């Protein structure tokens, strides 16, 4: 056996009675895969694929111990005895790979709603949660006994269901944390007041659970190290609680988290705007004060980061959830000396965290199999087709990957010198660079599959006919579109088209599949996380000086074709990162920036990816003004006019430049030309309808799997 690049990461550790082969934990997270309150075959397939992929330990999503705890629709009701058959399904599936699996059990207390249960919430004190906003019932000692007994019952049920351990979620969304925290525990009985009293419930639960399950099962406690709320628990008390747990002697390990799920969620499942390992101070402090094994978490997404956290002594195990959502084989690829093959998580939060908040099943922006592990994988193609993909954005690349994986012969034509399409632009913004890992990951697979890409080669009817493929997939993306309220002569795009900036569409030699030497094939983009070259504001020639107000698309700015200066008004009609990204970029360059939107908030979709708080904090720090419920009506000399739709008032803002984050239009003409010619043609991604990257990836995958 060769020396691993990650010696500690791939060394075993004991958690009480359970031996864990490596330090990589697929720790607890919601999936919304449950049906009627019960675990499903999808759960089993999902966890099993991470076990097969080499995870050292799997901890399931939380299971509710009591009927009063039903905060979201697809919660697993572990208080129903019939969960056991689903438990067996999960544990058998995972155990076939020799991987231990623990069940996380919990009562969310006041962090919930009576919407599904028609019961009042239970909590230490009648303090409404800031998200659910429902005043809970202050439970008496009889109900506290009931809660404790329900944990013990469910722990025993987990044992019957074949789990190797249970983890008590006492951290970001739990009645136990609510008892621990002075912010939510206002009691004056033996369960409130000093820390010893506030920790009483926790220690009574651990005691009861150990009594119920005996010594053969591991018991873990997940603690919140800092609630990040006023008057809440901080690291000092968290460490004290960990010491009490150790002293009690029934718990085998401590897991950690940061924040409160309903008050400071954006710190728990942090997006790429947070530095990796931002929460490692918590396991570090607990590990220093106790001898229990401690799990560290917090946006650790590659094996190098994990090894570093271990070798520098922050923690004993590393929870890596999103890393393994994106790539179930994360651990094996790292262990086998091929970490560069890992499909790195972007921390974009779009299809994992983002779907959880909307009561949808968990997916992944770049892994179309996530959430569909129980479906049969695509079968190899019966006949090998010659597939021509037009466009090397995320949709085109995914089409090529899916089609090539099934044995088709694939060629990709790309009009520009680079792969990645709009992702290149999006990733050129501060805080967004990791988005480019999407393209980097796809290009690694493309290289592995040997798919050829011709750059600076636009697909035209003529060139396609010469190549004579059996199938064409049009993945040509979208182009900026002038909104109807904007006069054409003030739109920058029209200046470009009238001028000389047409280099992207010049004719290029055509090649065919049979040619071995493919002219125009550029070196693939190097597989690093750095993203495309950063745009250097000072080196960009300003093609047009704004002698009057000119409106440009976000893309024109990011491509360096326009360099707005002075007073910039950004119109956000998309609600995602486009407007906020360019606002930050331009504010950093010294512009005076105002972002407007017709919606009720700027960047409305940033909420579900947990980017909204960070955006607002940075926007305030950068002096960016945000104005809402404004519909642009027109531009005149040096100003832009809006209708404030709730009041009907007009608002005029001075503007040297207007930057538009507005719906683009699909590049679809080629598709219709090919259809007209009777050529078998499909289209994917923005070429169908301009949407987010995951739509392009999913459609590319679907077409590639269908051919």
């Amino acid at each position, binding site marked *: 056996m060769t020396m691993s690049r990650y010696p500690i990461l791939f060394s075993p550790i004991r958690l009480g009675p359970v031996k864990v082969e490596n330090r990589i934990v697929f720790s607890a997270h919601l999936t919304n895969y449950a049906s009627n309150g019960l675990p499903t075959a999808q759960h089993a397939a999902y966890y099993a694929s991470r076990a097969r992929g080499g995870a050292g330990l799997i901890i399931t999503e939380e299971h509710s111990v009591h009927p009063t705890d039903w905060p979201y629709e697809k919660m697993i009701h572990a208080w129903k005895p019939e969960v056991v058959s689903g438990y067996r399904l999960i544990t058998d599936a995972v155990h076939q790979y020799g991987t231990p699996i623990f069940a996380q059990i919990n009562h969310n207390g006041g962090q919930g709603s009576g919407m599904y249960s028609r019961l009042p919430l239970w909590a230490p004190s009648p303090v409404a949660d800031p998200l659910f906003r429902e005043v809970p019932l202050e439970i008496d000692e009889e109900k506290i006994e009931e809660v404790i007994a329900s944990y013990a019952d469910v722990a025993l049920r987990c044992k019957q269901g074949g789990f190797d351990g249970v983890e008590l979620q006492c951290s970001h969304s739990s009645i136990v944390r609510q008892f621990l925290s002075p912010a939510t525990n206002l009691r004056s009985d033996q369960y409130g007041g000093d820390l010893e009293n506030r920790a009483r419930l926790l220690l009574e639960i651990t005691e009861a659970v150990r009594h119920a399950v005996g010594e053969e099962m591991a018991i873990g406690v997940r603690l919140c190290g800092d609630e990040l709320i006023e008057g809440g628990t901080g690291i000092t008390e968290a460490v004290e609680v960990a010491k009490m747990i150790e002293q009690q002697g029934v718990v085998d390990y401590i897991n950690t988290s940061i924040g409160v799920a309903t008050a400071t969620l954006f710190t728990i499942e942090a997006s790429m705007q947070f530095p990796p390992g931002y929460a490692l101070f918590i396991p570090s402090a607990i590990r220093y004060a106790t001898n229990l094994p401690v799990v560290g978490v917090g946006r650790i997404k590659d094996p190098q980061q994990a090894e570093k956290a271990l070798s520098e002594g922050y923690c004993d195990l590393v929870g890596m959830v999103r890393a393994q959502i994106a790539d179930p084989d994360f651990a094996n690829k790292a262990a086998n000396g091929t970490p560069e093959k890992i499909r790195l998580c972007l921390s974009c939060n779009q299809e994992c965290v983002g779907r959880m908040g909307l009561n949808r099943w968990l997916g992944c922006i770049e892994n179309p199999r996530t959430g569909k592990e129980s479906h049969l994988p695509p079968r190899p193609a019966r006949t090998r087709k010659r597939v021509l993909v037009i466009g090397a954005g995320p949709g085109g690349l995914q089409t090529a990957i899916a089609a090539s994986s099934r044995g088709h012969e694939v060629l990709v034509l790309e009009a520009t010198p680079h792969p990645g399409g709009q992702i290149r632009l999006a990733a050129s913004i501060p805080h967004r660079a990791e988005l480019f890992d999407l393209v980097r990951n796809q290009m690694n697979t493309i290289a592995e599959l040997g798919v050829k890409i011709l750059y600076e080669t636009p697909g035209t009817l003529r060139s396609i006919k010469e190549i004579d493929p059996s199938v064409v997939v049009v993945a040509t993306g979208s182009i900026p579109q002038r909104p109807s309220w904007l006069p054409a002569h003030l739109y920058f795009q029209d200046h470009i088209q009238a001028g000389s900036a047409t280099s992207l569409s010049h004719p290029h030699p055509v090649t065919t599949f049979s040619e071995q030497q493919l002219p125009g094939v550029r070196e693939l983009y190097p597989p690093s996380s750095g993203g495309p070259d950063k745009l250097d504001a000072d080196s960009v020639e300003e093609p047009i000086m704004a002698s009057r107000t000119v409106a440009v698309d976000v893309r024109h700015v990011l491509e360096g074709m326009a360099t707005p200066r002075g007073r910039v008004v950004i119109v956000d009609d998309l609600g995602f990162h486009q407007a906020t990204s360019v606002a930050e970029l331009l504010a950093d360059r010294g512009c005076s920036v105002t972002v407007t939107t017709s919606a009720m908030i700027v960047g409305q979709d940033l909420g579900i990816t947990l980017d909204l708080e960070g955006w607002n904090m940075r926007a305030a720090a950068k002096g960016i003004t945000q104005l809402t*419920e404004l519909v642009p009506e027109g531009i005149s000399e040096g100003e832009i006019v809006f209708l404030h739709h709730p009041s009907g008032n007009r608002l005029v803002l001075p503007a040297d430049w207007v930057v538009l984050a507005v719906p683009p239009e699909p590049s679809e003409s080629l598709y219709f030309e090919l259809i007209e010619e009777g050529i078998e043609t499909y289209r994917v991604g923005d070429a169908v309808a301009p949407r987010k990257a995951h*739509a392009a990836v999913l459609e590319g995958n679907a077409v590639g799997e269908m051919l």
Partner: protein
Amino acid sequence: MTSDPSLRLCQAFRIRGLEASSRVVFGPHETNLGEERRFSQRHVAYYRRRAAGGAGIIVTEEAAVNPSDWPYERSPLASLCERGWRQIARAVHSEGALAIAALGHSGGQGSSAYSQTALLAPSRVPEVVSREIPKAMESRDIESTINSFARSAISAITAGMDGVEINAGQYSLVRQFLSGLTNHRGDAYGSNRLLFLKEILQAIRSRTPNAILGLRLCIDELAPWAGITPEIAVEYILGLANSIDYITLVRGSIYSAWATRPDSHVEPGFNLPATRMIKEALKAHDLSVTLIAQGSLVDPRQAEDAIADGVVDAVEMTRAQIAEPDLVSLLRLHGLRARYRPCILCNQNCQVRDPRNPVIGCIGNPEAGYEGADELPGNFLDTKPLSKVFDDQPENEDSSREPTGTERSDRAGFRESRSSPPVIVIGGGPAGLECARTAATRGFHVQLYERSHRLGGALRFISNADGKQRFSLLADWLEGECMSLGVEVILGVEATPEHLSAPSRAVVICTGSRPGRLTFPISADGVVIDPAEALNNIGSIGVPDGSHLVAWDPLGGYLVLPLVETLARRGYELTVVTPDLIVGTQLSRTGDLVPLQSRLAHLDVRMLKHHRIREVSADEVVVEDIFTNRRSSISAAGIINGGPRLPDTDLWNATNRSYDRIGDALAPRSIAEAIYEGRRKALELPLSISTIGSTVSSGS
């Protein structure tokens, strides 16, 4: 009281040769009762209950005609609905109503979150909230969608449904084709916006020639610059000529999704003027089509007048029948003087297009959505439809007898005299009233204590807010039922432990809530206004007229914003301070979120979003930006405490916590929970146990 058998609402009428037993329609609406994309047994029970109560036509929840439309997770999919339609048709027919299947496609107003494919629409116009850009349909998409409509209709009719209703109203691809807002096509479907619908109707009619073919048509998109107007709608209807059997007239567009089924801020029957205009225009063209009215029709008199005046042939009274399934039966027996549980147009629990998939419910009728669902929370012991009781009686036997409650108790065969130990209910708010009413229905002797001089509690003070007057109707109904059932009401008495010392069967504490703790310091001379108190005494809230008040609203909820609006209209200056980025977040489910912004803007209410209050003194409120922690101060005469409330537990504590609490006295929540718990508690009272002593807990 006289029975009025002559109400036109209750008369039968014919559509395409089939008889509907009344002119009251239970219209199509989202329920989230489905199992995945199929109809469930809960659907069957839900529709059966309304058919049993006298609805003439039941139109089932819209089924998407093909998988490209998956607008909400539990949206029925036609290809999976045949079995459900069969069961619903059987159930609804057995109760004497017609069953019609709503069919539709949401087009660009759907969601790609579940289907994970592009939305389809006539043109690439994004819906305003989701902002998702749809795919402009190719001709083959159009063709396959038309075929899907026909296939779905065949399936529904095969299953035994009497007809289908095509949605060209809110959330519909067909309306998107009909409208200049959303149809910018350059082909035949753009030059003739009616073509798509015509082809759908033809395809259906040719394959199901004997079935009822209805159309749900938007007649006003409230966007006259490009949208459908009543004038355009007339043209469309003329163009459809004799290809349809009825049209249900609705309104609203992508810019006004809230306007189709608005809450009580919009007058009941708001769509009747436009409907009348359509009727007259059609008459002028000598065209006679069966018209059905829609639009907050909750008042039987208004509905009756619309039919009697010849405006429409029938009325959709959907929310009215969610609240009172027996509406038609009661009208049949008692005419317009019937007492029925009123719909108050609150939209709090019956509007369920929400990603959390709440099941349909009703603030005042806790059975709605839970009909006969034994294993579910909310199982009721007493779920036999009231009409079954009526069926046992010969018609017109005794028109003077009291409705509802007594019949149920007669059936239970259990009735206690005034001398027997009472069930004592403390507090005459929604929880106490419903508890007393239900207990009396079951035959118990009930005493109801209310410390104020009026029954109704929160229902009364909320009704003092502008746009919320209808809340008092529910209080009136509960009060009236209690009176007619012989509940002994003791007003103006603050119950004490001594009142409870006499023998009783049970004591239920429903003392409501009190203002919650503030999370910031108030100086001794700082003024804090309790919104409940202020609504109770809206004329004298304790600060000089016209003062500037700061409303602290960390909940975005139902109580403080109606007060703000009401005070602003009375000349006070208002600033709402909220930690949220949007004022009134909780109102999104009711559909009032957008209209509220407009009303507040017109009332010059200032909004300080993403701020929290830090301290309050006599004339100043210090606030802090939650993103920057920057503080600033506002001069104000006082604050309104819109924060979470606390249970009023004084009496409960004074009686050694030995009695059961329900509603806000347990945990302050909405009126729906109070009424549900009132019902549940009364249904749990044991019939068999003899008198209990005052010191004994009533159990659970």
